[in-house]
């Protein structure tokens, strides 16, 4: 190990006044390649140490300077330099707890457990009741095989606030090592109840259950194990970063806070990194990811737009920006980013899959199929991809091909739920509803996840609805909604099924739930309005539609429905011919359909301007004849005659 002396002056000071038996030296890191701010900080602190040493300081002064420099080295993950400083500080100031504690912690982390034990035992001598040092010593004793001593240290900590979980975990490990698996289970469960996020505990708990022969419980726990660590207060380590500068420190701080669940703190740290290096796209990217994790989608998209400005071809940016845009409903922009991503990184499977999904939903199943085929070439073992491609094939009218592929996939993987779901869809498309139902029932028999089961129930419900078995359909769809209450698509389908049975009140409940989760959901608002109208609640429908139009002023269907209601409601307190005409004209200007024109005519009639109404209606009749909608002509003509007779319309929903 290369030891670089900290200046002759320091040697002189130490040799003359303190301890001559050992070279007074610290390990100075090479500052080559360091971020300039970090290099400047460390250089200035090392120079300050040299100056101080040269000035004939008191032992305590010198020890403090060495100790603080040690802390700083530790922040920058320079443990050898840190330890050399702390060892010297400890030598100069043997009664200072911090230096011993920090050095012991470094040694523990380095795996030098014998030395760590000696140093931390010294720290415990200075602070005999300090729980953090007791805990670290207990961990070390256990690792070194002295389970007896480890237990002595852990037991009192089990009652200390903040330390109970870690202590019980340690006691559980001791019990398990001694073969007392029931005792271990008790300790692990206590630890987990105190810190449920500490998913690491589930591993040992699972193994203890395995040892006790309860394999089912063991598998359950082992599957739920994770990286969540046990936490305990550690003031010395937690305050290390104070005064440290440098982008990597800010980033490390941000990552630590994010891992700890302190997302606002993490955002602040990442913003500090951005302030130091505003043109570094990676900093914006990590900020964007954290904001997305917080649900601040718009802010996240803003951050990713900065990444885009700085590095327009970054594949991860293009992907994450697209995801944010999808969540904001800005599908066109999302498609553009994903297209750029696929062009930039042709082997980005997730990018292809998401773009394919958007294409499929946007009425471009052919393009979706092409992308998914290419994605499968890139990742031939992803059966979900194959199932997704097969579902696109169905929408392309290639159900036989989809069925063949899913049958082949199921031959290799008989319990593949996605393949069974799509096989059911293919069978349904091919006119075999019985086979479709059988496939979906098989999914449910597999004991699949809630989400997959809900999907199977959904398909079953939809199929039953198509067969006119609405009561059974409602039961299936209700089960799907119960499993995935946040899924609006499921609620809307259930509401539709309820509506088809005349259960408008229950339908409105579903629409309300969908609107609560997404107030801008046009379909849910329209469905609710229709349900209210069909159940005779014109006043409630009017209020709901007015609120909806205010929220979604661009929505043609909602505005049209309101116009029609205001023109034709049976309830005198609801009708408002002038407003109806204004809205109807707006809607007609947007889309000149027969229905929209009819509403204009109805509004004219409501205002008593029957000649205008009849004139409009006459043109509507001509239009219907000209556009091949002859079947509608008799009803339209009857209404024109009614207007000529001075009759208003009061049965708007009969057609």
């Amino acid at each position, binding site marked *: 190990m290369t030891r670089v002396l900290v200046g002759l002056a320091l040697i002189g000071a130490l040799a003359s006044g303190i301890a001559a038996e050992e070279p007074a030296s610290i390990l100075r890191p090479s500052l080559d390649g360091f971020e300039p701010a970090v290099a400047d900080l460390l250089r200035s602190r090392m120079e300050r140490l040299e100056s101080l040493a040269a000035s004939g300081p008191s032992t305590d002064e010198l020890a403090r300077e060495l100790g603080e420099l040690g802390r700083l080295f530790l922040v920058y993950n320079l443990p050898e330099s840190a330890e050399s400083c702390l060892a010297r500080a400890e030598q100069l100031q043997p009664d200072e707890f911090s230096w011993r504690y920090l050095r012991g912690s470094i040694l523990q982390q380095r*795996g030098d457990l014998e030395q760590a034990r000696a140093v931390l035992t010294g720290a415990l001598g200075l602070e005999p009741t300090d729980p953090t040092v007791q805990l670290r010593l207990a961990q070390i004793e256990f690792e070194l095989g002295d389970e007896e001593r480890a237990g002595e240290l852990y037991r009192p900590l089990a009652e200390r606030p903040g330390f109970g979980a870690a202590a019980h975990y340690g006691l559980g490990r001791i019990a398990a090592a001694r073969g007392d698996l029931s005792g271990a289970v008790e300790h692990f469960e206590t630890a987990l109840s105190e810190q449920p996020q500490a998913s690491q505990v589930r591993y040992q708990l699972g193994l203890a259950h395995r040892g006790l022969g309860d394999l089912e419980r063991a598998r359950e726990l082992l599957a739920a*194990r994770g990286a969540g660590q046990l936490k305990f207060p550690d003031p010395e380590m937690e305050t290390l970063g104070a005064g440290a500068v440098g982008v990597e420190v800010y980033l490390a701080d941000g990552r630590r806070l994010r891992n700890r669940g302190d997302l606002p703190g993490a955002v602040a740290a990442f913003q500090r990194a951005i302030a130091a290096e505003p043109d570094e796209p990676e900093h914006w990217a990590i900020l964007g990811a954290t904001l997305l994790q917080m649900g601040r989608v718009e802010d996240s998209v803003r951050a990713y737009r900065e990444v885009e400005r700085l590095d327009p071809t970054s594949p991860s940016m293009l992907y994450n920006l697209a995801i944010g845009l999808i969540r904001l409903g800005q599908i066109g922009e999302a498609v553009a980013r994903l297209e750029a991503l696929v062009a930039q990184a042709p082997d980005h499977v997730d990018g292809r899959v998401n773009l394919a999904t958007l294409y499929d939903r946007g009425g471009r199943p052919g393009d979706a199929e092409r992308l998914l085929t290419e994605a499968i070439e890139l990742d031939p073992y992803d059966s979900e991809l194959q199932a997704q491609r097969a579902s696109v094939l169905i929408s392309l009218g290639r159900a036989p091909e989809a069925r063949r592929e899913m049958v082949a996939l199921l031959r290799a993987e008989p319990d593949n739920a996605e393949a069974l779901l799509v096989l059911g869809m293919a069978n349904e498309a091919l006119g075999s509803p019985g086979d479709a139902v059988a496939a979906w029932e098989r999914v449910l028999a597999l004991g699949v996840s809630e989400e997959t089961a809900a999907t199977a129930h959904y398909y079953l419900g939809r199929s039953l609805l198509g067969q006119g078995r609405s009561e059974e359909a409602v039961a299936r769809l209700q089960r799907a909604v119960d499993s995935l209450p946040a899924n609006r698509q499921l609620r809307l389908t259930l509401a539709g099924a309820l509506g088809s049975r005349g259960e408008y009140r229950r339908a409105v409940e579903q629409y309300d739930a969908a609107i609560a989760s997404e107030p801008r959901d046009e379909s849910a608002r329209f469905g609710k309005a229709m349900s209210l109208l069909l159940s005779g609640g014109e006043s409630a429908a009017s209020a709901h539609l007015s609120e909806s139009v205010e929220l979604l002023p661009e929505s043609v269907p909602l505005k049209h429905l309101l116009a029609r209601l205001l023109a034709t409601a049976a309830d005198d307190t609801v009708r408002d011919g002038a407003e109806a005409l204004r809205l109807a004209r707006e809607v007609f200007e947007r889309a000149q359909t027969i229905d929209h024109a009819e509403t204009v005519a109805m509004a004219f009639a409501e205002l008593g301007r029957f000649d205008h109404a009849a004139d409009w209606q006459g043109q509507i009749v001509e239009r219907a004849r000209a556009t091949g909608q002859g079947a509608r002509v008799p009803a339209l003509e009857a209404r024109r005659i009614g207007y000529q007779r001075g009759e208003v319309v009061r049965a708007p929903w009969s057609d």
Partner: protein
Amino acid sequence: MSRVLKGTLLGVTIALSVLPPGARGEDVPFVDRAAESGLDFVHFNGMSGELYFLETMGSGGALVDYDNDGDLDVYLVQGAMLGPGKTLADAIVPPVGPTPPSDRLFRNDSEGGELVFVDVTERSGIEATGYGMGVAAGDYDADGWVDLYLTNFGSNQLLRNRGDGTFEDTTMRAGVDDVRWTVPAAFVDYDRDGLLDLFLANYVDFTFSRRVHCSLPTGAPDYCAPLSYRPVPDRLLRNRGDGTFEDATRRSGIDSAFGNGLGVVTADFDGDGWIDVYVANDMMPNQMWINQGDGTFRDDGLIAGSAVNAEGQPEASMGVVVGDVDADGDLDLFMTHLQGETNTLYLSDGQGGFTDETRRSGLGQASWTATSFGTAWIDIENDGWLDLIVVNGAVSTIEALVRAGDPYPLHQPNQLFRNLGAGRFEEISAATGELFGLSEVSRGVALGDVDNDGDSDVLLANNAGPARLLINQRGQDAAWLGVRLLAGSGSDALGARVTVARAAGTDLERRVQVDGSYASSSDPRVLVGLGREPTVDRLELVWPDGRRRRWIDPELGRYAIWPAPGAAP
């Protein structure tokens, strides 16, 4: 098969040239004979200062008798220049030896006690100039001549041994290419049809164009960790028996889990007669693929207790090795990890369950300060206990070496551990001479009796450094027996078991095993150390298809060749 046969009647006992020990140091278990024997291979990692993650990872080597002359030849895997537009002129450490750098095959021409290796790469027809990672050896076409599968960053290669000293590249014809980053591969007859199938563990999706730049907390650039990239799925290729392979990855269920694969070892972990596969992943949970006997596998890593360490955390697994280290008749697992983690020993309960016994083994603390790659169980003194070699070299810069201005600040000394019995070990590196004081960036380790003197020697493949051939100076003084078990085709019966029943002491379990360690392939012969006072009653030999033979009063100090029951001797 219950008949008790006199081994020497059916087994073909052969006497091999035993090299004299040469200059033996009293306390030095190994001497490096690479340079003096002609093994002049220096690994080239293609680094140019860009700190490509890839350049720290290669490579391995193989001890393999490619010419069937009864001694082990050496195959060493080479790197190449790295990075778009880079040429050899950009290399920080220029290549030593032939250019462009390529893998090399050395024939063992030892004679009269002198260890001699001759570079036969050119005449063998081998052209392997990709960025090499590892090598697996196995006779895939069952013609009695061992073939080689080379793993690369980029396309892999299958080299078929023609039996005349030359190899042909049959990668495309056999359908075994994989363009992803593969590190270890293993030949394994998982469906017990007598043909060697191929398991490939792939690592991460690193590409130069999508390279991630990584820094230390100080802002200084450093090599990235694997989690900067995405893991790539592993593959299982089933041998059709007509020179081609079919992709059985999905059908076998192997595609259902994967990680950053760096180590593969095959063995029957649950004792059901079907060979299982263990995959060691870097910073992700490991998989223990239990063979269901119907062409499918189930990952039992978690419930078996061998997927993560005792704290429930995945570790940076690199090399992996299997063996009965506590002499209780079942197969235990050991794997190597990153600095700041321990290497981990999982002891088997004999029924498919494992317990992380690192804490009590003495292997934990000693490994904390090193990043370990290749590893092998080696009975150094032939006393019947499996000792352990672990070779080291970091993957991110070491503070002290940076401080000292080292141009490649990753090197660390290797380690040797003596088995004390009952799963306990002590480190003996410091007492074993200069070799284990050398600080290098070591990667692959292959084990084999290179000088045919009855003890295990070590081929050590270094990154950006010379290959070493560590010749064992101790084992030959104790009693030993050697067995080569052949399959019906005359190729090595990989996965076969050998039980040595002893009048005094526990039975010793060994296997015909070439895989494991890190990206390397070892001697297929089973060598069993018996100590100073051997008391061997019999050998139980079990072939992978379940056929058995018993050898009463086996002859010691010789390698015996045992064809499969029913096959012509």
